[in-house]
């Protein structure tokens, strides 16, 4: 310590640590008298009195032999990824050259070299994933393009960018409604997302439910997009199905809706459990009180996906049933329009062809307004006149079924006159088909009636037509589609709306004929999109046959209004409670039905506000 201070101007005190010597006790110097040059008497020069004074240290000093930085342990957080399911390794073919043989992976999704590099598609954690582990699981997955690009998963061809986005979205969603417009590849996106979930150990057991006619289609798509995935179809007698449902080690079970309902009910309180349940054509559960909807909701599962190109067929409220299946609303919840829209943003992914498929050939719609043939006209007018008279006579006893019967009868006559076989539609169809066949083209024709289809087959024999409707046994349907695709002499496929409108890939057909009109524009669109979908190379020409001055014109007018409303609801979210298929009021409105009322008449039929859908 060297604290030096003056005390009273006379005394210099040296602060010292305790024990220091007092300088004042040191021997005094000999007295010298000097004359300073300044003239000051040196006798006046005096030594200050100096002494040491103890003072407490401000900081306690510590002595240590050494100092080591103590960093403590570094704390870490660890996430181990679940073990995925191992499948057969990608097939490798051997390319033998002169003196060498090297393995070569089969073609993965390699983008054409001229394509500019695009932003990789990353899996994002869903908003409802809250834990750090869940969120990191998704964030740390490689970009989908890397994941799929021939390194581990062989793909038949490169998915489109919007499909990558759809796959990434599905991968991360526990509840999801993939509502892409028909033809945009919902099947492929679903299969690939399933594949990634299986590979990453997120799911181990999947149930896929679809309409019965689509089972061969799904099997074919699985083989094409994920041939390593084992798929078991639920079929056979009851005992066999029980065995299939509960067989251990099954990865993907494929069932139709009818068997799902029947078999799940037989399981009672202990149904088989799944990590993921996928409902294809999920509009089948739009009625939440139906057995199908209740059964689907009752299957124990961790993830729930719904697939449909028409999430709203009739009313926006139909979404509530789908949401309930997806477990994003409580049971029996009745979300209002605002809530439905909010939920849609999180749980529905819908893209339209216009938005994503700028390179898809256009769909050219044309209405063929045809005059009825003379005998047809006569038969039609007689039937309508008699039918309306009969309905009017029934007065208030009239029901929707009575009107419906008349509508169907008249529609059948516009197809052909059963007595004479005259048909202006057939004449036009034959003319068009001559041209199509001459060019080697292929066409699909849809009708509401199997009887009409069978009637057409005999008259269009020169085009080698094939038939695909509900009366064709399931095991014979695939060969029909295969022959239609492969046989150059077959130019026409006759299909019923009920069987052929959904799920089939017929993009090699460039022409679609709607021989008669369905009640719902969404179903007609589904039918058309069998041909107008990914893979279609040329424009698809859609011909709608409409008989002039008949009930078909009136139906067409109503459907057109419905179509506009449909676009409004899904496009802008400004839904109304209007039914999109024809309701009872609208079907009554097809005729000018009046009952006698006193001396005059009054209109018959339900009030316009009634919304019960007719179809």
């Amino acid at each position, binding site marked *: 310590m060297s604290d030096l201070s003056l005390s009273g101007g006379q005394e210099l005190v040296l602060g010292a640590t305790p024990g220091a010597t007092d300088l004042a006790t040191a021997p005094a110097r000999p007295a010298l008298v000097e004359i300073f040059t300044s003239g000051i008497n040196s006798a006046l020069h005096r030594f200050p009195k100096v002494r040491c004074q103890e003072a407490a240290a401000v900081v306690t000093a510590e002595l240590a032999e050494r100092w080591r930085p103590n*960093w403590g342990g570094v704390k870490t*957080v660890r*996430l181990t990824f*679940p073990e995925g399911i*191992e499948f057969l*390794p990608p097939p490798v073919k051997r390319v033998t050259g002169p003196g060498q043989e090297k393995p070569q992976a089969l073609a993965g999704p390699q983008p054409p070299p001229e394509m500019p590099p695009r932003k990789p598609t990353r899996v994002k954690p869903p908003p409802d994933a809250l834990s750090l582990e869940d969120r990191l699981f998704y964030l740390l*997955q490689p970009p989908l393009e890397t994941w799929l690009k021939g390194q581990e998963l062989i793909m038949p061809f490169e998915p489109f960018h919007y499909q990558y986005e759809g796959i990434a979205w599905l991968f991360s969603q526990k509840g999801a409604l993939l509502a892409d417009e028909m033809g945009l590849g919902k099947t492929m996106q679903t299969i690939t997302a399933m594949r990634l979930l299986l590979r990453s*150990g997120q799911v181990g057991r999947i149930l896929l439910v679809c309409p019965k006619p689509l089972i061969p289609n799904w099997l074919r798509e699985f083989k094409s997009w994920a041939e390593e995935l084992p798929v078991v179809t639920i079929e056979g007698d009851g005992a066999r199905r029980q065995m299939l449902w509960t067989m251990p080690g099954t990865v993907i079970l494929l069932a139709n809706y009818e068997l799902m309902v029947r078999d799940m009910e037989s399981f009672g309180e202990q149904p088989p459990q799944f990590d993921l349940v996928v409902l294809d054509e999920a509009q089948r559960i739009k009625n939440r009180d139906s057995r199908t909807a209740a059964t689907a909701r009752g299957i124990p599962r961790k993830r729930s996906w719904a697939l449909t190109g028409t999430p709203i067929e009739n009313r926006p409220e139909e979404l509530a049933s789908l949401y309930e299946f997806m477990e994003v609303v409580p049971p029996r919840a009745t979300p209002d329009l605002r809530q439905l829209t909010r939920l849609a943003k999180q749980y529905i992914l819908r893209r339209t062809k216009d938005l994503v498929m700028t390179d898809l050939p256009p769909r050219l719609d044309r209405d063929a307004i045809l005059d009825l043939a003379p005998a047809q006209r006569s038969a039609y007018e007689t039937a309508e006149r008699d039918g309306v008279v009969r309905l009017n006579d029934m007065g208030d006893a009239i029901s929707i079924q009575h009107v419906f019967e008349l509508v169907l009868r008249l529609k059948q006559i516009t197809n052909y006159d059963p007595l004479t076989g005259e048909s202006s539609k057939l004449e036009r169809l034959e003319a068009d088909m001559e041209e199509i066949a001459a060019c080697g083209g292929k066409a699909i024709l849809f009708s509401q009636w199997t009887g009409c289809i069978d009637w057409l087959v005999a008259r269009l024999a020169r085009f080698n037509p094939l038939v695909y409707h509900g009366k064709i046994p399931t095991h014979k349907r695939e060969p029909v589609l295969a022959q239609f695709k492969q046989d150059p002499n077959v130019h026409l496929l006759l299909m019923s709306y009920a069987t052929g409108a959904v799920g089939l890939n017929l993009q090699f057909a460039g022409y679609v004929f709607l021989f008669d009109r369905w009640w719902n524009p969404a179903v007609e669109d589904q039918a058309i999109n069998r041909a107008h979908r990914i893979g279609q190379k040329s424009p698809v020409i859609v011909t709608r046959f409409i008989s002039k001055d008949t009930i078909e014109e009136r139906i067409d007018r109503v459907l057109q209004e419905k179509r506009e409303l449909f676009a409004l609801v899904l496009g802008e979210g400004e839904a109304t409670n209007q039914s999109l298929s024809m309701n009872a009021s609208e079907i009554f409105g097809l005729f000018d039905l009046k009952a006698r009322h006193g001396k005059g008449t009054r209109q018959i039929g339900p009030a316009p506000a009634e919304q019960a859908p007719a179809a």
Partner: protein
Amino acid sequence: MGSSGKQEAFRLGFLTALEIPEKGYVGGLLVTNQQGRPLEFQCTLPVKPNSTQEILYGPTLAGFILGELIGVALFEKAGVKPHLVLTDCEPILELREHIAAPVAFVAPDAGRPAPAALPAPDSVLALDANGGLPQLKVAPAANGQPGQLDEAGGSVPSSAPAEQPQGVEVRLGRQIIRLHRAHVEDGGTVQAGARHVPGDADLSEPFERVRSALYEALRIGAAK
């Protein structure tokens, strides 16, 4: 695939770190199989030196914290040990002096935006300044230093200028990686493992995943 590793012929560890103002350094190690599929991820809580440590360690501080503290902790605690540790943060190369596995530096891909240009997750930027992290932005890491964050969004110079060690260079996937200069023997190990890695594998990409995960962990940690 977890730790059993039926197809894990060559496991890669992607180790990188961030420096966060006021909080210190965080590191993350993503262990993948040779195809880039994640097997395990581990990250540290922030490690912050005090002023004495800053003075005493001087310019060696970053290398010490990143290589010896964070790197060693992440490697030693890993349940699935990588056969090769890759880093895009040059000070972490010093980890090689403390572990038996090879460590290599992956220079930022010229064709890839530097980490500074990568958009930080919205969730991080949206954090309430009072509730946790301030608005953050990553400073360039092109010099091989840890990505740094500053409130103003400006570039913060690294605390330790990178020296330019020269080590063995090996092609792995699309990149050329540089091994620790004192361990030339690692070249043989890496070359033997490199045959399992696809030739078009992008070894810079997994670091983006690690950074995203670190941001997410920080965001959630700050929110708690």
